[in-house]
């Protein structure tokens, strides 16, 4: 599997993603945002961080960068795209994923471990998890409060495009287990073809038992086929 990690000025999770991918024997390349050629990739990852200092809106400037045109083209040809945290915000700003990510409800930058539920495993990103599995991942964001209008929310639900929901240790999805005010506890979503996944929690921070846990590793190993 060939993967590319897109690097923007202000990206700060790019190397963590690369470590996770290389651990699973992906042939990974780092791609600078000014490049206009994308190496042939089965998977493109847009990492977390603060691209362009979060100027204007988180992800808004990165969404207009050179390389993003290539990412959009690849996405439309079915290439797998994963956006984590700021990467999710960028995918939202490109329009590849629907909705918006607003300031956290409590106005605080959140950096902590949370529980999320894998909604279904019938997709390329989650197939090594069980449907309904509860995993612990880390979040670190200021704008993770997912919003979408009710008509499109219904589409997400009906077409089974919600990938992860925030929950508590018992798997209960409610206001108490919602860290940032996201609509329906949404932590990650797919596009209609399910080749694009955007998520606020960081799976790449949970790929090594010595440092944290291995709850995130199945997301990457699922992609190996």
């Amino acid at each position, binding site marked *: 599997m060939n993967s590319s990690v897109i690097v923007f000025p202000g990206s700060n999770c790019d190397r963590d993603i690369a470590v996770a991918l290389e651990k699973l024997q992906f042939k990974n390349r780092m791609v600078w945002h000014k490049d206009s050629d994308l190496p042939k990739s089965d998977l493109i990852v847009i990492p977390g961080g603060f691209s362009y200092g979060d100027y204007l809106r988180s992800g808004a400037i990165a969404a207009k960068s050179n390389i993003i045109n290539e990412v959009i083209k690849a996405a439309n040809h079915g290439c797998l795209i994963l956006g984590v945290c700021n990467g999710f915000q960028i995918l939202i700003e490109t329009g590849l994923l629907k909705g*918006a990510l607003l300031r956290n*409800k409590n106005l605080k930058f959140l950096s902590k471990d949370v529980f999320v539920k894998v909604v279904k495993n019938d997709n390329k990103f989650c197939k090594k998890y069980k449907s309904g599995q509860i995993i612990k991942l880390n979040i670190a964001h200021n704008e993770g409060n997912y*919003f979408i209008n009710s008509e499109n929310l219904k589409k997400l639900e009906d077409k089974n495009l919600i990938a992860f929901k925030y929950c508590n240790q018992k798997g209960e999805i409610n206001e108490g287990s919602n860290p940032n005010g996201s609509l329906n506890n949404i932590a990650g979503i797919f596009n209609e073809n399910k080749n694009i996944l955007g998520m606020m929690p960081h799976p790449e921070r949970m790929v090594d038992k010595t440092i944290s846990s291995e709850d995130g590793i199945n997301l990457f190993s699922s992609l190996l086929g």
Partner: protein
Amino acid sequence: MLDPQGKVIQQILQNMGMNTLKELRQGKYFEIEINEKDENKAKNKVDEMCKKLLANLIIEDFKVNKL
């Protein structure tokens, strides 16, 4: 639309005794100079800028005023 920053500012102003304050929302403001003599064309250009980048139409709307 939930505007948590606006809500906090509103609450503080009300605590400060601004009793007639009904609702407050926070937004953004850009000053834009355009190299264009035709006013309509200039306005259309700014509209395009708002739609393509400056505003996120899912959560924001915009208004263009001549200064």
